[in-house]
């Protein structure tokens, strides 16, 4: 803001992003309604992650803001993923 962040996204961009998100949502519903077994979960989570990334980058402005926010957000999410992974070292190999 003020000096540090003067990028203003246009209304059109917001609407485009929204359209993209809704499309992705419809796609997940479609994909998961057909039987794909394990792939099902993977596809749903992959699309959810894409949607989350879009929200973070555009709606939450990470793409245009100072890089530090992007780095922090990335590290935090990576941390969560590693924690889930380590927890599963227990559950997968019991």
């Amino acid at each position, binding site marked *: 803001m003020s000096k540090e962040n003067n990028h203003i996204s246009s209304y059109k961009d917001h609407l485009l992003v*929204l359209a993209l998100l809704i499309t992705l949502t419809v796609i997940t519903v479609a994909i998961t309604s057909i039987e794909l077994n394990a792939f099902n979960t993977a596809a749903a989570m992959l699309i959810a992650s894409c949607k989350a990334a879009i929200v973070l980058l555009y709606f939450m402005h990470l793409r245009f803001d100072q890089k530090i926010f992007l780095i922090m957000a990335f590290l935090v999410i990576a941390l*969560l993923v590693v924690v889930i992974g380590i927890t599963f070292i227990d559950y997968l190999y019991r």
Partner: protein
Amino acid sequence: MNSNNQNMETAIHTHSDMHRDDTASKLGMWLFIFTEILLFGGLFIVYSVYRYMNPVAFHLAHEELSITMGLINTIILLISSATVAMSITAIQKGDKRLSLYMVGATILLALVFLINKYFEWGSKFEHGMYPGSDLMDMLSNGDMLFFSLYFFMTGLHGVHIIVGMVLLAVSWFKIKKDAVRSDKYALLENSGLYWHLVDLIWIFLFPLFYLIH
């Protein structure tokens, strides 16, 4: 001594105004969002572990939820995310009226989301499915875990919706009173960030509870 102190008082006030640091408050909000991500992260761990341990029960239980309801709510939240983002663009461009409309629309959409949720939960309650009910006690282990998580996670998400609405409502009044304006909109921006977080969490809750099997 007394007058000395008086001077100090005023000195602080002018000072703190001069040193308004919007980036600091944005950083603060981001840090808070990280905390929230980990808060739900804990629940995601629980969810994934129990899903792993009870795949069949989770599959069957999820069919009790209505995909249509979930889909509608997802789209509502996505739109509300866009409206709040546009309200920020509007305030940045100095368009107070549009900004007010957009924040208003966001709050309204949030309300619709909650009403939707109310009916969704309500229909479960009608069938005797609510925390602590006899029906719930009779469920098989996996079903019990699924619905416990369902109520807990969507419930906690609902609480976040309400907090977000309060923040947005405050922003609305501040915009109205010109306390939030084109050169000073940190409050709106931060409320917007918080609102996007609420959306972000739902983006994961939706497939986890309604879709995957």
